[in-house]
Structures are given as C-alpha cells and as structure tokens.
C-alpha cells in the first residue's frame, strides 16, 4: 500500500460528498485494492452520463414524467454513494417533473416547471462534473 495514500477526507470536499456514506463503500474494499469502490464509483459515472443524455432527450420532448423518473433514478444512486449535491439536484428534477415545487406543493404551470427543469439539469450536470473530477483524482492515486 502506498504510504502516501490520501484519505478520502483529504481529497473530497464534504459539501460534495457525504463522507460517512462514501466511506462505508470504501470499507467494502479489500485491504489491498479498491476494486469494489472503483467499480461502484465508475459505474455511477457511466450511469450518470447515460441519465443526463436521457434527460436532455426528455427535456427536448418536454416529457416531464420521464424527467421525474430519471431524476428519481439518479437520486437513488447518487444518494447511495453520498453525492449530496447531485442527489439534491436530482430530487429537484424529480419534483419539477412531477409538476411540483421544491417543497412538494403542486405547481400547475408546466412552462415554469420546464424552465426550472432546464436550469436544474444544468446545475446537476455542473455539480456532477465537479464531483466527478474530484473522485477521478482520488482514484488516480491508486493507479500508479
């Protein structure tokens, strides 16, 4: 094991990643490799990219229901690995897609929801990019 291995808390910003959640995934790794957590995290990257693409399509089609469903889907996986910001963004997408406000009250204005969805998807993508970069950097140290 590399003596200089960074601990996740040294690299990962706790505003981006919930360390408690992320650490319990790291704990599942065998002592000498990071295969499991790597597969989870990189699997999530793939999933997120796919979901974003699907969101773009759904947004273009103004398919709110689909957007809500996609939001729910990505919310689950991002929450599972502790990507707090992404999870919150996905929840917003889920709600707007259901014609709801953030607080869960209903919002009958479909155009407003679409507008919000456009912004929310943009935000989620940015938040995702940010955390993706950090996580990739974190895993790079094990490559060498």
């Amino acid at each position, binding site marked *: 094991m590399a003596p200089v291995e960074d601990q996740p808390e040294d690299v990962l910003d706790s505003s981006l990643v919930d360390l408690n959640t992320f650490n319990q995934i790291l704990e*599942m790794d065998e002592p000498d490799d990071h295969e499991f957590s790597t597969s*989870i995290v990189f699997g999530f990257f793939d999933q997120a990219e796919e979901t974003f693409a699907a969101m773009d399509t759904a947004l273009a089609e103004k398919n709110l229901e689909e957007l809500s469903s996609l939001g729910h889907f990505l919310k689950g996986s991002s929450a*599972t690995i502790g990507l707090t910001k992404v999870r919150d963004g996905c*929840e917003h997408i889920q709600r707007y897609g259901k014609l709801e406000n953030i607080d869960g009250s209903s919002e009958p204005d479909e155009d407003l929801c679409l507008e919000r969805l456009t912004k929310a998807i943009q935000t989620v993508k940015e938040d995702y990019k940010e955390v993706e970069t950090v996580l990739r950097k974190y895993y790079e140290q094990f490559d060498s």
Partner: protein
Amino acid sequence: MSNPEMATATGGGNNASDMLEDPSHQDVARWGKDGDTFVVVEGEKFTRSILPKHFKHSNMSSFIRQLNKYDFHKVKPSSDSENSSPLGNVLEFKHPYFKIDSKDDLDNIRRKAPAPRKQQVNEDFTTNHHISVMSEQLAATQQQVQQLQELFTEVSQTNKILVNEVLTLTKIINAQKAAQHEMLNYLTPYNNDNQRTPIISQTINSNGRASDADDASVPELRRARELLSSVSTDSVTDRELERLQQHVYGSPTDSSAMITPTSLPLMNDPMHDITRYPVYPVGQTVGIDPFHSDHIHKIPYAMPSDVNASVLGDQPQAPTMAPAPTQTEKPDAMWGPRKPSVFLVEDDPICAKIGIKFLKSMGCEVEHASNGADAYTRINSLSRQFDMIFMDIIMPRLDGVSATMYIRQSHPAIPIIAMTSNIRPEEVNGYFEHGMNGVLAKPFTKEGMWKSVRTHLSHLMKNPPQESEIGSGAGYFMGSGPYLNTSTSIKFESPTPPSGTAGSNWSPGQIQQPSMGSGLEQNFGLLNGSGQYAMATGHRPQGFSANLHSADSSSGRLSDVESPPEKRQRLNPQSTYSC
C-alpha cells in the same frame, strides 16, 4: 290626493293666514273671535272667490282635507255662537299654532306625518325580511339535513366496513389461536432438540427466571398456552357484531371466506423454512409464522409486561456494538448451520451492487433481481425459499408494492423489507398495508441493513442477540406512541445523508401504529408480521418521539434542509430500529 294639492300643501298654514289677513274677505272668511280659529263664513263664496287665489283649485272639500292634513281640526259650532250665520254654513277650524297674534308659530303648522302609512310599510318590510330570513334558514336547514344524511350514509358504510373487518379480524385471531395451539402441541415432543431452545431459554433467563435450559421449553410452551387461553374475546360483543353484520348491514363479507383455519401441513423438519411458512395463511391473508419465538409473544393481546421485556430482548439494538466490523471479521461465524439467503430486488445497479456487497459481507447468500416481475418469477420458480427480501419500491415493469402483493399470495411469511427513499408516513403505511414487514430508508447504510437482517433472521443466527447485550428494550417502538400517525407532518421524503453509525431502518411496529389507528381494514399490516409486533411495550425511549418532533419542528421537512449527520443521528438515536 291630487298633485295640485300636493303642490300647495306646504305652507298651507301661511296660505290660510294670508287669506284671513285680507279684510275684504271678512264676511267670507275670518279669524274666530278668540283669534285662534279659522272661520269660513260663506263656504260657497270662499270656494269660488278666495280659494283660487291661494290654491290651484276651488274645491272646498279638498281645502278641508288639506286643513285636516295640516292638523287643523274642525270646531263644532256652539249653538249659541255669535258666529253662527244665517246661511248655516259656517265652518270653523282650529290648530294649536294657528293664532292671530303669533305668526311665528305658523311655521309649526306642518303637514301631519303619515305615521300610520309609514308604519304599514315598516311592517311589510319587517315581514318580508322575516320571511326571507326564514326561507334562508329553511334552505340552510335543508342543506344541513342533506349533509347529515350524506354523512350518515358515509358513516354507515364506514361502520359496516369496520364491523366486517372486526369480524374478519376476530376470525383471523381465532384461527391463529387455533393454529398456535396446534403448533404448541406439535412442538412439545420436539422441545429437546428444537433449535429454538437457546432462544427460549435466553428469553426466560433474561426475564429473570432461572431455569434449566434443558426443560426450558416446557414452561415456555405451557406459558404460551396459558397466554393463548387467557385471552378470550367477548362472545356477547361478537354475537352483537355478527348480528349487526347480518341484519343491519346485510351481506356477509367476502373476507370472511378467506379465513379458513387450516390444519397443519406435514412438517418433516420443523426448522426448515419451506415447511415452516405455509402454515395456514389462505388467500390474501398473510400468516404469522407460529414457530417464530417472537410471534408467540407478540400476538397483539395485552400481555404481562415482563413478557414484553423478554420478547424485546431478542431484538437487535446495539448502535454501539458496531456490527459491521464484527461481521467483516467473521461473517460466517454469525450464522447457524446454514447461511441466510437474501433476495435483493433493486433496479438501480449502483444500489444493487452496494446492497449485495453489504449483504455478502454479513455472510448472507444474495440473489438479485432488477424489477418486481423478475423477482416474482424467480421466487416462484426456485425450489428453495429466500429467508428475506429487500424490495425497492419504484422499479420498472413491476413496482415493489405490487410485487410484494403477488409474492404474498404464495409466500405469506417471508420478511419483505421496503427499500426506498419514499418514506413519508402515508407511504410507509401503504407498504405495511400491502404486506411488507419493514422499511429500510434509502440511501441505506450497512448498519441499517444489518439491523434489518439481524432482526428478521435472528432465528438463523448462532447466537441471536439477546437482551443483555442489547440493552433493555431500548429503541423499540412497537406502536406505543402516536408519533408517526398521519397527523404528524414528519416527512422523510428524501433522507438526509446517513451518518455512518445511524441506521435508517424503521420498525414495522413503529410504522404500523398509524394504520392500526386509522382503520381496521388494514388487516394486512396486522397480520403480515407487523401487526404481531405492534403492541404496546412501554419500552420505547421517551426521548424518541420528542426527538422526532423537535427535529420536525426545527427543520420542517428534513428534505428541505441539508441535515448534518448529527441531526440524522439524533433522529435515529439507537432507536432507529426494532423488529
């Protein structure tokens, strides 16, 4: 009265006065001798020559009417009056303010207020008003009556349902009782080599009853029998209910048909799950596994509190004992002769992967299905039975709740844990109503998952957790508090990031309470393994509901705030869990 008169009406006093001022008319009209009356000596002449000068008419009777209107009164001519005229046509009128020497008073001569007429109008108005008010009231009353009728119909229907449900439940309970008697009878010869013995003896020991482990099960069985027989339903009430159902509410329920106490199936190996489960549940009814030691104690009857204490004892509750590391070290050592087999139904590959990893690290054998339909097919095609199912709720093809309902038709007793982020109380109620046994909030933690596994599969463990290592019943919420009823606005729609130590599993009993309170029709929940847990224990830590409420009030919806882990911890203080 005519218009001309109206026109001249005002100032009638002055007109009369002016007429009298004219000396040339002295022989026609003049002041009375006391200067307080108005005398018309020659009516005809007065009418012809004087009236037209002052009025727009020449009509004596109109003039007299006018005078009357101004409150002049005719003075009866006295027989000896010097004023009497030979023509005999003298008219004399009087008014209190009509005086020769006080012209100012003339202004006081006014047209009489048409009082009586006005009164009439008022009366009409009042009457009309009264009538309209009354008709409004009548309409309102009619509406009320209608509403009451509707309410009555509704209540009648509800009551009908309730009566039916109570009857159904009574039958279910009786059936269970009978089945449990059968079980006990069956168990008796097995008690020596029964693997339950350790649990039972622990239960008793932890209960403060010193007893030899060898014959521990005998008093246990006896006691179970006593418990069963000690609770009897009120037969009079039962009959009354039946009468209500048959005569008042008519048709018998279909639901009663599904309660068919069945005889015990052959069980070659009483400990084997496959034969254990299909004991007697029929149709939609979800059965209790009578072999499970917990259940014997957890029939929802009032029980002596010491029994509760002992039952609670074998529930896992040890937030401080850090089970994960323990498990990682020797996962296999935790389990008895065979490892538990767990079925994970989850569409999200990430969640599934982590869940599988967690479960495997606990020493479980894991199978995975990615949607409800697949899960249902797999469960029915496999010859062996899963010990436990973790079930996502929102999935493609078949959602978790529907899948559970299907699975329940053939597998009434497998613990099925909802694994979801949709954990608002009403949603959670729905899970229990549809036959689920517990809720593991997403994102789940290993801790939460482990607690769930340990709770539902304690019978497979080599050393089931016992009271001494867990602490006296701390953290159990088996329906003794209303903290999660529907009026509470606690919403866990999107769980906050879990801390590493705080579990996020909810107990069936904890959640079940609202549905118990909100209607008996939810007999699923009552029977499928949450109901039997749902009993008042009195062991729930006092702080829990307070914590929940304070969290509720301080943060409103938890999902709206970025709850720090410590809040989560506070919310789930060692208490996040129970059965």
